[in-house]
């Protein structure tokens, strides 16, 4: 075991007093959280507790919903995420996102991964773009399966492959942070375990925030766990502590299966 000082990692994202409203209804209530760099943080809680809404605050995806209003500050390094001056388009280039349902574009496998680098002008030449696509697919653990059919339609892949393709697509833009919104909820157990292994590998390079309904998944992949209930952050701590010695009785009731 290393010393305690080594265990404490740098803070990547600092959220303070985040409130989210959908029209009149308040979905999140004064949530403050510090996210560690290069670690996996899991958001758990019953449906409608605001965990997905919170996840979407980090890359301003809530902007897409007309009635949604976000208050509070989210600092990622020196970037003030929630500042109206911050360009959400540039922000989202630094923060990749993976969705509940695999959503590959109706293009070829290659074009799906090349999409991000193309729109952001990251590659100077065709060869560089090829390298980026290969590198991203390798990091997403998909290269071996699709190397010889990059020109095939992405919609022809299996669900698990599609989801890893979406991860590769997100990685290709070169983000520091990956947001995953229940990435395995539409997948079978085998595809799920592949993605979970992948998440553990990606943790070396990225700060990962994952929303999940599966407590086993949270326990398997994350170092930190945040439990949400009715729009408030009830408990946040090391995953092993939250699951073995929850401080809050709501948390305990949820992880022991009494509610939710």
């Amino acid at each position, binding site marked *: 075991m290393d010393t305690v000082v080594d265990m404490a990692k740098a803070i990547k994202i600092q959220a303070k007093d985040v409130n989210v409203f959908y029209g009149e209804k308040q979905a999140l209530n004064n949530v403050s959280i510090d996210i560690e760099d290069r670690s996996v943080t899991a958001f758990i809680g019953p449906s409608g507790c605001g965990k997905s809404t919170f996840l979407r605050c980090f890359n301003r995806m809530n902007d*897409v919903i007309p009635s949604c209003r976000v208050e509070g500050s989210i600092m990622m390094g020196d970037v003030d995420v929630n500042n109206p001056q911050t360009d959400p388009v540039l922000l*989202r280039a630094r923060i990749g996102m993976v969705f509940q349902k695999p959503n590959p574009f109706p293009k070829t496998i290659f074009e799906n991964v090349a999409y991000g680098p193309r729109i952001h002008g990251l590659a100077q030449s065709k060869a560089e773009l090829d390298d980026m696509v290969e590198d991203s697919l390798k990091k997403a653990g998909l290269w071996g399966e699709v190397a010889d059919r990059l020109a095939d339609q992405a919609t022809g892949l299996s669900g698990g492959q599609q989801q890893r393709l979406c991860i590769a*697509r997100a990685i290709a833009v070169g983000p520091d942070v990956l947001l995953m919104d229940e990435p395995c909820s539409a997948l079978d157990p085998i595809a799920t375990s592949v993605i979970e292994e992948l998440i553990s590998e990606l943790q070396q390079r990225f700060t990962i925030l994952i929303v999940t309904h599966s407590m086993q998944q949270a326990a398997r992949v994350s170092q930190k766990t945040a439990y949400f209930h009715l729009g408030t952050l009830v408990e946040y701590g090391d995953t092993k502590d939250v699951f073995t010695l929850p401080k809050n009785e709501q948390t305990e009731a949820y992880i022991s299966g009494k509610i939710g």
Partner: protein
Amino acid sequence: MAQLVNIAAGYIKAPDAVMAAQAELLRAAQASADRARSLTLAAVMCVGFFYAFWRVSPELRARVLCEAFLRRLFFLSAVVAILTTIGIVASLLFEAVRFFREISLFDFFFGTHWSPMTALRPGDTAAADEFVAGSSGSFGMVPVMAGTLLVAVIAMAVAVPIGLFSAIYTSEFASRRVRNIVKPTLEVLAGVPTVVYGFFAALTAAPFFRDLGLVVGLDVSSQSALAAGGVMGIMIIPFISSLSDDVITAVPQSLRDGAYGLGSTRGETIIRVVLPAAFPGLVGAFLLAISRAIGETMIVVMAAGVAANMTINPLESVTTVTVQIVMLLTGDNEFDSVKTLSAFALGMTLFVITLLLNVAALTASRRLGQRYE
């Protein structure tokens, strides 16, 4: 007889005693016929009433009978619709076959000269004899078809960009309030009778293009393909925008989220993700629009002209398949002449083309549906 009826009804005075007596007889006959009709009606009503009265009983399962009756009624309606369609197609086919007995298929489909009005039946008169040599050649549909395509292409060149862009606006950018105003307004355009578009084309658009041509030194015919096609394009805009809007709205939100999540701007999302995803459906919408443009009659009758010019110059006057059919079948014509029959051949060709376009359109949009469950 007609006079007698009038006298009997008392509209006019009988000119003489014979007529008056005859009118009296007619009146009596009519009166007895009226009585008989009333009696028959009353008898039928009585029989019906007693039959119903006799049948009404606790054991009668009227609901089942009603359901069976309704089912047959609906089935019959469907059959009537299909049978009439088949009948129309059959008569078209039958007459077209008669035409092709006179004129060879090759001459019709590949002939480059169209002038049915001057082509009399072979060997009719001495005057016609001079023309007999060219008689078969004057039923070449290529120039007519070329005119049809030219007008349709101009119409699509107007309607596709405007229709598609307005659909993108209403589906992707407009707030719900704006959308609720813009969409119905565009659909009102679809309700304007084509004859109104027709005289707009003939009296406003065509002179406008001619004057414009004079200003820039171009010789524009007063019945130009440009005017007819342009106005037809305006007619098709609501058609395209409405269908395209439905198609674009049907693209799953998850694809847009994915694009935004990668840092796409709105424009990039629409051009690189939404439109490619909607492409098969859009193609379907455009094909349906083309088939409407090709079949459209009123605008071209009023604005495109009748001369079968073989040209791709939009400033000249062209004619279309529909215009020729109108020309051939209106007015005094012997019904068995080749020229009348040629209208059926043209109609048949038009029908086959639009049918193929519609089938292609349906297949295209079905492919879109399959891709997203």
